[in-house]
């Protein structure tokens, strides 16, 4: 004999909840200038990278980013080449614009992978002692490496394709996401509402997916936006150190790296992609901070 599940409290229909949430989202965003700035910048970068992957790339990119023109090498910024040209005569503006999609792709890829693996592992280890002991020891071990050093060593071993770079940064970031989720799960499972769910006959699976996981959403979103910016920064750092995304795929990191030797003669090669990079990472961090202010009011600093 099975007891039919009873719904004591009925949620309003999804449509209503989404509309309510969107309304709150807009109003909080407009009331938090930092968050607004971050969202606008990231949206702009997304738009730029969207255009560059479509056949209309030349609307904004002006030139082929890989087209060599040895006659035009190391030219300063002009109306023809807005950000100047590099040592192979390639248009730095076009390379920077095309680099946008590489960076955003890395950021989004890493944030997605880290979220999926981190949430899954975090929820499992938060609920299972044995898994907790094994997984968290491995995570502690991984966290005992300074992140960039571990990423560098893995790049040395695995080689640096774009996919490898994303995978490696994701692996390096996963432990901290797992820790965050685990901590939330550990505190949530002691709550009365979880006891209530269990008492009403909900299975462990149901409790995990419907009662605990939705509540990890806020910290996970905050972490994911921080990892998004962090991954873009790490990809660029690897590129700058000469072991990141291969040269034929323009990325902000490898453009800056190629300009390193020309600081006296052609500062523009490294300068302009750096502006894009700094702006994007700054925006991602502002979103992270802004979301934390909104979602975790304890840290807002006001009574």
């Amino acid at each position: 004999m099975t007891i039919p599940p009873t719904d004591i409290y009925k949620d309003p229909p999804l449509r209503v909840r989404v509309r309510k949430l969107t309304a709150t989202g807009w109003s909080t965003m407009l009331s938090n200038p930092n968050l607004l700035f971050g969202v606008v910048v990231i949206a702009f970068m997304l738009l730029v990278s969207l255009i560059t992957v479509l056949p209309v790339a030349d609307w904004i990119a002006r030139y082929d980013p890989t087209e060599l023109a040895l006659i035009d090498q190391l030219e300063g910024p002009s109306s023809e080449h807005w950000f100047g040209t590099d040592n192979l005569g390639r248009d730095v503006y076009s390379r920077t614009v095309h680099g946008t999609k590489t960076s955003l792709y890395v950021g989004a890829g890493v944030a997605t992978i880290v979220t999926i693996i981190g949430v899954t592992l975090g929820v499992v280890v938060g609920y299972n002692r044995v898994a907790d002991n094994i997984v968290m020891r491995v995570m502690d071990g991984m966290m005992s490496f300074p992140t960039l050093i571990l990423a560098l060593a893995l790049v040395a071993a695995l080689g640096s394709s774009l996919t490898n770079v994303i995978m490696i940064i994701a692996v390096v970031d996963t432990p901290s996401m797992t820790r965050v989720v685990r901590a939330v799960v550990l505190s949530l499972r002691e709550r009365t509402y979880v006891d209530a769910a269990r008492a009403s006959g909900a299975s462990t699976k149901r409790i995990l997916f419907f009662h605990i996981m939705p509540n990890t959403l806020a910290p996970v979103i905050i972490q994911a936006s921080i990892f998004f910016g962090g991954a873009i920064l790490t990809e660029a750092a690897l590129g700058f150190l000469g072991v990141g995304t291969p040269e034929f795929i323009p990325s902000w990191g490898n453009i800056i790296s190629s300009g390193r030797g020309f600081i006296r003669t052609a500062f523009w090669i490294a300068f302009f992609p750096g502006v894009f990079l700094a702006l994007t990472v700054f925006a991602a961090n502002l979103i992270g901070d802004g979301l934390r202010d909104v979602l975790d009011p304890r840290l807002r600093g006001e009574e």
Partner: protein
Amino acid sequence: MTAYIIKRVLAVIPILIFVGILTFSLVHIAPGDAANIMAGDYAGPDDVKLIRTELGLDKPVTTQFVEWAGRTLRGDLGRSIYSGKSVSELVTARLGPTVSLTVIGGIVAVLIGIPLGVFAAWKAGSRWDRGIQIYAAMGISIPGFWLGFIMILLFAVYLRWFPVIGYVSPADSFTDWVRSITLPVTLLAIGGSSVIVRMTRASILEVLREDYIRTARAKGLANRAVLFRHALRAGAIPIITTVGALAGALITGVVVTETVFTIPGLGRLVAETVQNRDFPVVQSMLMLLASLYVFINLMVDLAYVFFDPRVRL
């Protein structure tokens, strides 16, 4: 308390074993043949064979691991396949610049970061707080290699206040040493202090919300006394943790900083050997830096015990 210390120190052993296994596996997770990769594109089959026997890659993996672990424990860190020099030789030759940069950079970062963080928390929500927070957000967002590039462009190329690249040992010329490390140290301190500001601000804010702070205020204690006598004393404990985070920021920062300023230190060594895929050196550096990082975090945890009686329980 002693039991806690022993437990904490012993906990380092499995971590170091894990670090060792991961470091060792590096050569074996390389797709294809590690000897081939290291030999480079222009090597003949004899060179590859030489590297393979040199590194013992022709033996079974377990034998290799036991031999490698034994050598590492005895302090034999291997030999660069690129320059032929032993790793200990390379490390000693390059230690000086890195120690100068990280120690001075770390001290400056603490001296800037903690007061700014405390002040921001104390004036939370004010214009000052917002300014300091923007500084910290920029410090962790703006890539060090790009900021370093701008600093060189501005202060070395145009204003000519500092040399563009290179490092002068203090034994050779003290003033030249100061000139050669000013920009790199500033770069490291900006990154490090930003991390500290954020952590300090958060922990002091937490303390200021405690009941006993409200009590102290209610008693009519002057603002300054509340901050210095009550809040800072309790806040000092979480601030110690920032040292662990600072160590991470400095180790990462020094690789980038030394590359930007072309300083022949350990960070540059890491970057160069990764580029050359000089596995023995990469492995040893990974092992050394991870052990250092583990050791610093152990020290931070032990310092906790002395400051916070609650941990001893």
